[in-house]
């Protein structure tokens, strides 16, 4: 596990323009998130829900030395959080998909139910489609993460991506159309 300094360093490097630092950051935070979740599980009764937002917040803040990080640019927090939310939800859906049909979805994040509204296997398909979209247009993929997984408004998303809200609206329309078509095609292929 990287120490706090490492994480903060990664964040600073990322802000400095080092793209891979962002990926490593998410990985590190996600690792910590799994640890947090495991600890929660270890002392909790079953059937207990943890909030994914809370998990993300806690994991992230634990790892980032707040004194060294300027928060003028909130893009980083949201970008990391949005990606983490995506990871959690996808893992949750994956765990649910591998569970026996009809069994309660209690396993994800190493066995902690993260209190997510029942999300069906569509999320896995969405995740795959989003990965594909990311290859075509990375900004579109980030936009979907921010809007759909992190629940940001158009204005918030615009601020994070540093574009005009109208651009977000237009891009969002395109991304939705693109993903909708992709998922529809995927279903046809399955049938």
């Amino acid at each position, binding site marked *: 596990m990287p120490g706090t300094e490492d994480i903060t360093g990664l964040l600073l490097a990322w802000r400095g323009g080092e793209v891979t630092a962002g990926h490593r950051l998410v990985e590190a935070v996600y690792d910590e998130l799994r640890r947090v979740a495991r600890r929660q599980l270890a002392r909790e009764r079953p059937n207990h829900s*943890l*909030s*994914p*937002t*809370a998990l993300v917040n806690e994991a992230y803040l634990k790892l980032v030395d707040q004194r060294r990080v300027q928060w003028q640019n909130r893009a980083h*927090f949201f970008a990391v959080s949005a990606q983490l939310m995506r990871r959690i939800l996808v893992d949750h859906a994956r765990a649910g998909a591998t569970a026996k049909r009809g069994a309660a979805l209690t396993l994800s994040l190493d066995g902690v139910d993260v209190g997510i509204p029942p999300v069906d296997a569509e999320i896995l398909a969405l995740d795959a489609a989003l990965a594909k979209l990311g290859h075509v247009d990375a900004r579109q993929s980030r936009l979907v993460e921010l809007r759909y997984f992190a629940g940001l408004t158009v204005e918030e998303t615009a601020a994070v991506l540093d574009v005009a809200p109208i651009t977000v609206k*237009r891009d969002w329309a*395109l991304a939705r*159309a*693109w993903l909708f078509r992709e998922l529809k095609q995927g279903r046809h292929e399955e049938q």
Partner: protein
Amino acid sequence: MRNSSEWERVRLLFQAALELPAGARESYLSTACPDDARVRDEVRSLLGAHGEAGAFLETPVGRISAPTAATPAFTLQPGDRLGDFTIVAALGAGGMGEVYRARDARLDRDVAIKLLPPALAADPQRLARFERESRLLASLNHPHIGAIHSVEHVDGLHLLVLELVDGSTLDERVVGGPLPVRDALAIARQLTAALEAAHERGIVHRDLKPSNVKLSPTGSVKLLDFGLAKSHAPHDADTPLLPAAAPHTIEGLVLGTCGYMSPEQARGQPVDRRADIWAFGCLLFELLSGRPAFRGNTPSDTIAAVLERSPDWNALPPELPAGVRRLLRRCLEKDAEQRLHDIADARIEIDDVLRGEDEAQAGPVATRSSRRRAWLAPIVTLAGAVLVWWVWTAATTSETPLPLTRFTWSLPANTSLESPPAVSPDGRAIAFSASVSGEPPRLFVHEMHALDARAIPRTEGAKQPFWSPDSRAVGYFARGALMKVAIDGGAPVKICVAPDGRGAAWSPSGTIVFSPASIFAGLSRVSAAGGTPEPATLLDAAHAENSHRWPAFLPDGIHFLYFVRSVITERRGVYVGRIDRPASAPGTPLFRSETEGVYAPLEGDGGALLSVGAGQIDFRPFDARRLVLTGDPIRLPLPAGGNTPRQASMLSVSADVLAHVGSPLPYGQRLASIWRSGEDLHIDEHPGLVSWPRLSPDGSRLVFQRLDPVTGSPDLWVEHLERHTLVRVNQLGTSAQLPVWSPDGSRLAYVAAATGQQPALAVVAADGTGARSTLPCPRNRCEPSDWSPDGRWLIVHAIAGPSSDVWMLPTREDGSTARPLLAEAFVERDARVSSDGRLVAYVSEETGSPEISVQTIDGLKQREVVSAGGGSQPVWSRDGRELYFVDPAGLLRRTPVSRTPSGRPVLGPSTRLNVPALGTGHFGTQYDVSVDGRLYFLDRRIDDPPRDVGIVTGWRALVKSALSGTRH
């Protein structure tokens, strides 16, 4: 897509086409992209998908808390104006919004303004909820809860206007290590009172922690951010792990030091008041041990500690009373079901411990352990103590005047001053009355050489202390009597009756001159050994005087100064009287003044009169033998509060020591109204003392008595609630008490009194036109409580000696005669008739303490006791189906009243109303209820009393420099 330029083309075409009507898109595509069929197909396909996609992905699966401000870059700058507010300085910023210090021009006070975070202000649902809760919280009138003054919308900004609380937060305080047990308990005691008041109204703080508790510089505890936590949570509430607000607030992402979060909060379960009790336990633990009860290196470690570990009980101080340990364990019970259920139990436990310590500490100062030091230790610094010791030593060993020295005693947080300080004639001690943790006031004596003030036992209710000439005893008023007590021990002794004293002075020859009552009383004199009081001064009705008060002896012990209060401005001032010659005040005062004077000896034969003027001390050279002023007044640069209807000026003086307090003691009651649901509190600012609010039968007007703070005139005012007009209905210079409306709302009956006259039952037109008549009273005194719905009878409380019954007096000349309605052997009073005229509710004292009874008015003795455990101030709802009353704790309750077919009343269980406590012990009824359930009541909340007592030794040097200053 093969490459990014192709995708870019698709993107632009798609987005441009989307702006067009569906029918125009195809031709646009052909025109805009004539050369690439594949791109056109792709765009077409995506447009089709867009048409089908509906709400696809429109509902997010997650929600990351939105940030509020990029940095603590403040929206407002000092000098910016928002309506009536002028920004003074930025105080802080965080997820809960930006906070500023601002000046409120309307009320001429400084306030804190919280600018709501845009995320909250932009969400109408959350905003509405926030405003609703803020209004409820604004009704939480409690001295230990930071008040919410209002919610305002100014220039498109949403502001929360809060009481400005200066001082440090508790977390800054505990950095210095554990607090002395006594101090910690004193703080905890105030917190329990605050939580109790909130919990009673169903309000849970949710985020109690040291940084939300403020200690004012003078030591008073204020709990901040009450209950706002909930409003700040997004309504989708996807944040169960998070405490609602926290110091580590980043970008609106709120994440707490989880150390005060209850286990159920940490689990994301619903939270109730037991979460506050848990947090209270954490806080008390931390105060006593100097370390958090639950701590981890990371938030998750801390949560783990909260959920599974016990606090380190060994960290608590060894001398901590067992009761407090037990209390902590009960508060920090992880299972909420097993936890202390009611914060009042914590208060009681702490009170018991504090009381026990009082008894344990009754010994001399030196034997006390240093740990339990000086809980009522006004001396601010050790240096101050040394100084006082030195000054005192100098005073007792030398004839030379004391050097000029100024220092300040600050009363501790849980103690509120209830009287001006009184300096003993020998200058070695100061007596004052103070209330500790809301208990009844007691007498305290602070000897200059001692580190702390000590309570004089059995002096509950003491007010207005004054010294014996030998400085060995203190006289005071308590519970309707003039009292004295030796400061070195011994039981208090009653000197004589004094219903509601307004100052006293003790002459060298052993005569006490005192003001026995607050209105229509001249001064009386009595031997300090006891006896029957005799008049010392006579009120002059011709000059519309209503009180002589605040006497002070001159050096001959025969003449005394006193203050005359009158509705005539020129008459108010300081006069000289003689104990051996009861007389009216002379034609002209020594000097015109709104405050009283005290005599101070100067060096040699000189003397001076000191009084308070414009918030400072005025000094007038005075020849005590010739009884004349010998020079112009000089203003000394010492702040002092002037007198109030209840208290003398905040100034006391001996030859060498002067004590002063910079502001007057708060007094009075404000008229407030609130829907009975507890919403929409409205407070009318009527300066002065307000009593007996009563609604007209149609609900359009409110009558109440208001005592003018300057003239002392107790007038009856009728306020039109819609037009906001005020009309005085009594004659100026007379007093009007206990008003009762006639059923048609045209007249008011009340007790009229005036200087030199017996109180009488008066009836006057309610429109202020002045038509006035009197009703004969069959006994010594009659106090109206109701008017029968048919208009024929005035219901009165008729008093003759020990007998006290309810009578019906005819209001029309139809041949009816007065007759008793309730005339048992015990006291019956405050009778109220239901709107159908069939039932009467009243206060009975059969058991010795007041209870509320209801019975049919036709004389059948079917009495039902409403208030198990006691009650007073019965008021019927306008439909007669409910009876309101005040329980012994001062809380307003109501009980449903139905009737059997035979008309016998049947009472349901009573429930508490969600309004501030009204208090008990009132004379008459201090609230009323409108037909639609709006409650009018006297809001007893008053501002924090001043806590800093300024002491000046060798004060006469100030006069010298002031005199030389005027000569230059």
